[in-house]
């Protein structure tokens, strides 16, 4: 008789934790990371609205729409009830009038357009409010925020799962789900404060970023990191004192978790964005006031954002004065492979036969 132990409902210890650092000062919102993930993992029916990796514009409502107001996470050691984002709040999986345009004989008169199925799905999308940002001319501002599962140290999604399908993998700290056990109850989606879990309506199970664990097992960096043209995504162990992630997060303290107040201890970190100075009404520069309000950045990254930004500015001043900066040299990434820690293997060198790949992701080959 196989029973589900109570311990499976909580978190388990990990012997290692793969972490990532995103340098927001280098992100140009190109969504290459989003597409790299999409084409690799979420192309099947039921996954149309899945964007396990996407870039939101800040300030903004993001994806799912208004996710920061949907609850979840931990408070005083207790799980906080949250809202389960709907397919429409994620932006749905857009359908288009292909039949009408291509096969209906109206191709010269009818344009390709999204067709709303009645649930409002075409009224939002993962980059719907891209580049809108905040502020007023001439002090408008925005920046990009790549978002994915935070593979938290204290994942409330794991604690909320009634079946024991969700777990934190000891060897790399990836928060994963046994899709054979998942019954699609979606308490994980409610509990996750980052709203990074999606429901696959076709399969009746929840799904989310898997940290590209089959790639990690082969020494390959996650697709979002490796495909990023801006060289802004570091991958590796935050516990390796010689590695860039440990130094950026723990030694130099210039990389911070998103919404640390959610209490889950994320393992995705961000170098907060610097910003130009505000302009006075006469268009002269206000050297005292950054255009991105510091209080807004604090609302995202916590109070440590002020010292992190001050540290980076100080390093910039040092270099401008002719000095050197280990922090800036690290963030510049002169050598691409240094982003990826031990995960530098070129995936093109791997055995990519379909049957091999199918085994890796746990599905039978067609």
């Amino acid at each position, binding site marked *: 008789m*196989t029973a589900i132990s109570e311990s499976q409902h909580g978190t388990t210890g990990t012997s290692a934790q793969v972490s990532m650092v995103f340098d927001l000062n280098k992100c140009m919102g190109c969504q290459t990371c989003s597409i790299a993930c999409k084409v690799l993992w979420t192309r099947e*029916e039921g996954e149309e609205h899945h964007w396990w990796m996407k870039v939101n514009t800040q300030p903004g409502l993001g994806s799912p729409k208004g996710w920061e107001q949907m609850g979840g996470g931990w408070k005083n050691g207790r*799980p906080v009830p949250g809202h389960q984002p709907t*397919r429409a709040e994620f932006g749905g999986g857009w359908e288009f009038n292909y039949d009408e345009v291509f096969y209906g004989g109206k191709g010269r008169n009818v344009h390709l357009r999204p067709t709303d199925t*009645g649930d409002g799905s075409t009224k939002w999308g993962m980059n719907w409010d891209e580049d809108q940002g905040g502020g007023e001319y001439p002090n408008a501002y925005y920046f990009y925020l790549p978002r994915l599962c935070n593979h938290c140290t204290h994942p409330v999604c794991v604690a909320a*799962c*009634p079946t*024991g399908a969700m777990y934190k993998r000891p060897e790399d700290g990836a928060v994963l789900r046994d899709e054979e056990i998942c019954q699609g*109850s*979606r308490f994980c989606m409610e509990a996750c404060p980052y709203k990074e879990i999606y429901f696959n309506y076709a399969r009746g199970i929840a799904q989310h970023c898997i940290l590209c664990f089959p790639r990690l097992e082969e020494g390959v960096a996650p697709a979002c990191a490796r495909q990023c043209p801006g060289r802004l995504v570091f991958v590796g162990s935050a516990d390796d004192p010689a590695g860039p992630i440990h130094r950026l997060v723990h030694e130099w303290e210039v990389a911070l978790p998103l919404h640390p107040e959610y209490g889950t201890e994320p393992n995705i970190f961000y170098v907060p964005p610097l910003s130009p100075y505000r302009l006075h009404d006469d268009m002269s520069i206000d050297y005292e006031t950054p255009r991105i309000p510091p209080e807004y950045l604090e609302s995202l990254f916590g109070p440590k954002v002020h010292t992190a930004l001050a540290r980076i500015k100080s390093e910039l001043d040092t270099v401008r004065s002719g000095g050197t900066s280990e922090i800036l040299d690290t963030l510049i990434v002169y050598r691409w492979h240094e982003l990826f820690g031990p995960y530098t293997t070129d995936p093109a060198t791997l055995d990519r036969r379909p049957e091999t790949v199918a085994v890796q992701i746990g599905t039978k080959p067609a």
Partner: protein
Amino acid sequence: MRVTAVTDPLDSPTDPGWEAVPREAVPLAPVPLDAQPNAYIRAAWEDRPYGLVSGADVAVARNNGRLFVRIEWSGSTGPATNGSLPEFTDSAGVFFPAPGGSGGNAGPPATIGTRESPVTLWLWRDLLPVQRSLPAARALLGCGPGVFRPLSETDGAKSPSDNSSISATSQREGLRWAVVISGDAPPADAPRMGLAVWDGANDERAGIAAVTHQWIELEAGA
């Protein structure tokens, strides 16, 4: 509850053969909140009513070693009319003491099994159009409210637990559901059954359900 022997399978809830099978009104009540399997679910539902379906009409028939359970009840909403996908759909299930449980079959049914006394759950759910590849019914091992998992060889998954033997047919008229769930009859030493119903419009799923708080004793009939 009498199990009526019938000469033909009664797979459909509209089969006229059901007219000869006695129905019983079975009361349902919410699965106890303090029995929910984790703190998140308890916190999320402590101020929210659930288990909204208060009862169902149940009839049980047997044919050639196969058990047919007809469940009829009223849900809170009809089918979606605007083409949108509901987040949760209506669902119903019957369950029997699982073979081999260390606690025997003495555990109360209100929790849909426990770790010591698991149950075999035959679960039907109203499928979305996009879920056409999924089975309408399946067998699960119930070890507590929502603590469901697929059966495996290590669970002694033979009849009546074998997934391939479970099937279901449903009929909806307005708010009224009639569902027949059938499978290989459970062993004679466990002639008792529990019933659970989930109101999808109320986001009910897993252990958030209405359930029988007393076992339904099954008696062989002519």
